[in-house]
């Protein structure tokens, strides 16, 4: 299908028809959740939990248990509204090379619930696809199920938000986010902190401020400063049309130090201003440049 767009979020990739959008998401370190709605109703829910490093889920977290428990929860919820749950079919499907336990059932609407274990990433997944009355399950199995990616051979995860895509090393987990339209901020953490922020309408906004430096004084959110333990705008230097900062941050009495690195630039081709921040060991600081190079804009 041509009218599909790709979601890359929280260590999962999938695709959905254009016009649908992610309306809820959560987790980041040991779990993940995302919900995708069409303009009228919820269509996709997907969640994952980390499992033990051996890759074996505890008995309570086996895929059939997870799916059946979910359906029972829905049954209890719908009972209050005098609606019944009917299990239509139990089978197995393949998701990203894994065998998934799937149940087609009808409550408020017909739903396909399926769960699988990804031993490459040590995660257990549960996904629900809510069908429209005129929607065929076979169609969904053609474009939705095969589009799910739960593990990759690469060393990074793709993140995609409002058309902007970038790569984050797999060991970094989404720790904080503020997903305001046009001005999202994300903070990833491992042994260092990575902060990424961008603003749309760059050309128009910069015409008000006059310069990137003046913009940086007013528009970079406080949460960005907090993530990298402060950003002194007066120390920003203009180099190759980019504002940048590099400074040592002393870590208490131990005498150790971290490196703080910030890059701010206006991408006139994308009409966006990007701000990247790093706080961590000096030897990993090239991560910031790698993320900068990975940024692409792929509008829907």
């Amino acid at each position, binding site marked *: 299908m041509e009218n599909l767009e790709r979601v890359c979020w929280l260590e999962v990739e999938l695709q959905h028809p*254009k016009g649908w959008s992610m309306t809820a998401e959560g987790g980041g370190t040991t779990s993940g959740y995302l919900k995708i709605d069409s303009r009228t109703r919820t269509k996709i829910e997907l969640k994952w939990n980390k499992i033990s490093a051996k890759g074996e889920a505890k008995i309570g977290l086996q895929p059939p248990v997870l799916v059946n428990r979910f359906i029972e929860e829905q049954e209890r919820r719908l009972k209050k509204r005098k609606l019944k749950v009917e299990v239509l079919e139990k089978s197995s499907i393949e998701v990203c090379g894994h065998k998934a336990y799937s149940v087609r059932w009808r409550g408020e609407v017909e739903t396909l619930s399926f769960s699988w274990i990804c031993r490459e990433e040590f995660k257990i997944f549960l996904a629900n696809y809510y069908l429209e009355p005129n929607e065929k399950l076979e169609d969904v199995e053609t474009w939705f199920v095969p589009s799910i990616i739960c593990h990759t051979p690469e060393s990074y995860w793709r993140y995609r938000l*409002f058309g902007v895509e970038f790569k984050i090393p797999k060991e970094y987990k989404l720790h904080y986010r503020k997903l305001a*339209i046009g001005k999202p901020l994300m903070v990833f953490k491992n042994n260092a902190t990575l902060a990424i922020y961008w603003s*749309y*309408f760059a050309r*128009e906004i910069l015409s008000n401020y006059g310069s990137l430096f003046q913009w940086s004084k007013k528009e970079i959110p406080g949460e960005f400063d907090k993530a990298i333990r402060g950003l002194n705008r007066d120390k920003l230097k203009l180099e190759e049309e980019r504002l940048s900062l590099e400074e040592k941050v002393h870590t208490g009495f131990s005498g150790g130090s971290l490196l703080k690195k910030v890059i701010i630039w206006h991408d006139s081709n994308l*009409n966006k201003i990007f701000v990247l921040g790093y706080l961590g060991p000096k030897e990993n600081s090239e991560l910031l440049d790698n993320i900068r190079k990975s940024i692409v*804009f792929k*509008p829907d």
Partner: protein
Amino acid sequence: MFFKKQKPPAISPERLYRSTPVATPGVEYEEDSKGMVTLIIPIKEGDKVVRKMKIKLDAIGSKVWKKIDGKTSFNEICQWMKSEFLITDKEAEVSLSMFIKMLADRRLVLLILPPPKPGTEEVQEELERLRFEIKELEKAYRKKRIDEKTYKEARASYEEAIKELEKIGRPSG
């Protein structure tokens, strides 16, 4: 004692995308050499303009305002915004609906809405919206912001539209 201003009933996103925004009659604008728009709003007492209020739009608002011509639909403005500002559908839709809402709340733009689809929630939504408009009209008349003739004519047309919609029927489900 404080009274919270009642909000107009929400329009479903689906219907909003099919709508066409138009500047409220009487609202004019001037443009400076940099293309920045200043809206000029007549403040009336009865049918007499007593003063004019000016609102300066920012660079983005100025560009979008010039697209609000009563011919270009919401969806078309979104598509234009997408290529003009290099943003996604979602960003264009959300930014435009917030801008239009801000203008509509101040009665600076009106939305030409497509007729509601019979038998859907849109009928109920439209009935609620028309009833709200009648209340607003009564308020404006009481406060002498509109004259008796305008009030009676507008009220009659709203009531006629309500009757028509009631014929179409409420949603089945």
